């Protein structure tokens, strides 16, 4: 049953009664007023979804009442009823915000349709607004998982830079999730309703990259049988993610600089200037600063691209994220492969935590995926992981050399190293001896930067 509230304002009692009766049968809640002032009093007492106003009333006219109602609640739908159709009045009513205008006597079907459609449209508009609000909430991509302070900082940065249109440079080793961060920035920006276009600059030759980025005209080169839009053109309204920016040739760097500055470019082999509105996000794992020193990367382009930098740490620097990430991938792939894997055994988790992860999150994901494919049990075991043995080193030699500092932290660190070494870096056993949780031990290993000596 509809629970919309309708206010009927007409100076004629029989009209008020007829309409009340008519709409009550539809299940609407009806209140009536016999003039503008009375209507405004009723209106101030509660919210109405729709108001049906007679145009000609003694005192305040329907048009005057319409303006006052709209000033109080712009959301209220107003339909005017009049005995005589007049085009200028109808236009004025619509200009002042009326939803529609009906002439007495109105066909019951028409009146019902107008009221029903108006209320339905309003309901849909509200639903749309609600849905948009939900979409506008900050979205963290599901693979961007982690509880470490470094990861939390990155999420915060994504949120901050997403709101701006500034150029962002993502730095980090291969496999750390630079593309995920780029997508997160785009998805949380006002450009999210347009595409994010990814171009791997390292995978293409100079001429191919130019054609890929700027597009080409028909006949621009051998094989260019059709005009083709470039990635900058396709990214209009959205974002363009240029991965491996450090590998771009000197010539393309000049072109890029021009495009970034003017947002205008020519397609390869064309004279027509193409305009496009895009945001640039770049990524690299190369030391650009060194490339600048070697004159392999333009300084001006570097400054253009490096407005905001987000450094994504390698996985070995955020060990506490490994169990969360690993379990996330277990869930993902066990569902995908319809396998009943409930988690990772403590021994296997120890191995994951002790591994260096040169391939970072991507390597961890592939390792878990492979373990789920080949594993037979309910839990992933060390033999499912097939991890290469890593050279662990203790980074702080002074600890072993008997540092003179005797702060509580130093003593704790030394004692942890001692217990770990005595137990061949078996985390579970060491944690048991230290009488702390395994996770706490991992956090302390991470805090003190400890590594196993082979």
């Amino acid at each position, binding site marked *: 049953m509809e629970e919309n509230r309708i206010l009927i304002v007409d100076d004629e009692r*029989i009209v008020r009664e007829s309409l009340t009766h008519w709409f009550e049968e539809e299940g609407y809640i009806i209140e009536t007023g016999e003039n503008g002032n009375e209507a405004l009093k009723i209106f101030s007492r509660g919210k109405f979804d729709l108001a049906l106003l007679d145009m000609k009333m003694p005192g305040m006219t329907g048009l005057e009442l319409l303006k006052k109602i709209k000033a109080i609640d712009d959301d209220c739908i107003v339909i005017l009823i009049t005995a005589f159709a007049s085009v200028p009045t109808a236009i004025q009513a619509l200009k002042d915000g009326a939803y529609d205008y009906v002439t007495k006597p109105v066909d019951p079907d028409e009146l019902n349709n107008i009221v029903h459609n108006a209320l339905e449209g309003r309901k849909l508009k509200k639903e749309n607004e609600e849905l948009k609000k939900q979409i506008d909430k900050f979205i963290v991509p599901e693979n961007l998982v982690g509880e470490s302070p470094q990861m939390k900082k990155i999420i915060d940065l994504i949120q901050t830079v997403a709101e701006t249109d500034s150029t962002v440079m993502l730095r980090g080793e291969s496999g750390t999730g630079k593309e995920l961060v780029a997508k997160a920035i785009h998805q949380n920006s006002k450009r999210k309703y347009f595409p994010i276009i990814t171009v791997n600059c390292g995978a293409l030759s100079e001429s191919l990259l130019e054609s890929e980025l700027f597009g080409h005209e028909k006949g621009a080169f051998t094989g260019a049988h059709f005009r083709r839009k470039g990635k900058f053109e396709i990214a209009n309204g959205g974002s363009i993610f240029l991965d491996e920016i450090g590998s771009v040739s000197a010539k393309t760097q000049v072109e890029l600089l021009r495009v970034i500055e003017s947002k205008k470019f020519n397609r390869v082999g064309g004279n027509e200037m193409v305009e496009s509105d895009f945001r640039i996000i770049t990524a690299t794992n190369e030391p650009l600063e060194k490339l600048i020193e070697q004159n392999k990367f333009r300084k001006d382009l570097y400054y253009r691209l490096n407005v905001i930098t987000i450094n994504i740490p390698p996985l070995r620097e955020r060990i506490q994220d490994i169990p969360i990430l690993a379990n996330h991938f277990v869930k993902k792939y066990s569902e995908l492969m319809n396998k009943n894997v409930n988690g990772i055994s403590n021994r296997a988790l120890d191995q994951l935590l002790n591994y260096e992860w040169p391939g970072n999150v991507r390597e961890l994901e592939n390792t878990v995926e492979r373990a789920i494919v080949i594993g037979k049990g309910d839990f992933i075991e060390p033999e499912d992981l097939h991890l290469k043995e890593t050279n662990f080193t203790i980074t702080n030699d002074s600890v072993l050399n008997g540092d003179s500092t005797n702060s509580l932290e130093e003593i704790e660190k030394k004692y942890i190293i001692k217990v770990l070494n005595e137990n061949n870096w078996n985390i579970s056993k060491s944690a048991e001896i230290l009488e702390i949780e395994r996770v706490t031990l991992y956090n302390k290993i991470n805090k003190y930067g400890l590594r196993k000596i082979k």
Partner: protein
Amino acid sequence: MKLNIVPLKFSNDPLLRKLIENLSLFFREIEIFYTLIDIEKSYSPERRQYYSTRILESVIKSNPEPDGYILIITELDLFVPVLTHVFGEAQLNGRFSIVSVCRLYEEFYTAESDNKIVVQRSLKEVLHEIGHNFGLLHCKNWECVMHASNNVENIDIKGNTYCDECFGLLKAKNIVF
């Protein structure tokens, strides 16, 4: 449950008989009685139609506490102010209703007459208005006789009985046929 049918300016006896036959599935007792009311004060010369609410008021005045439900059936063209016409009108949770068959006749729209279709349309409109007497509001179910229908096409589409949900509401109100 008793239904009193009041023919008012109604001359189609075969239709009345058919209606009674069909309505006897819903009402155990159906009685016809005639009443003398002045319909002229319900007449609008400009519109050449009769104001249904005023007719209902006159019948209520002549028989304020009826035994059962009162259904006025008429061939007069009915209206309420603001609207061009109405097929009928009923007191919500009351005992009185009126149905006009004027615009239910196929002749009103085309040159051809179709008795079968008039019986069906009249039955649906009677059950619809009496449904309002029972306290039912318009139903969203297109099959239900309580679905709002402001033109004959819609009357023809909908079913000639209450849907399960409306029957459930009637049962909850202790209205059983």
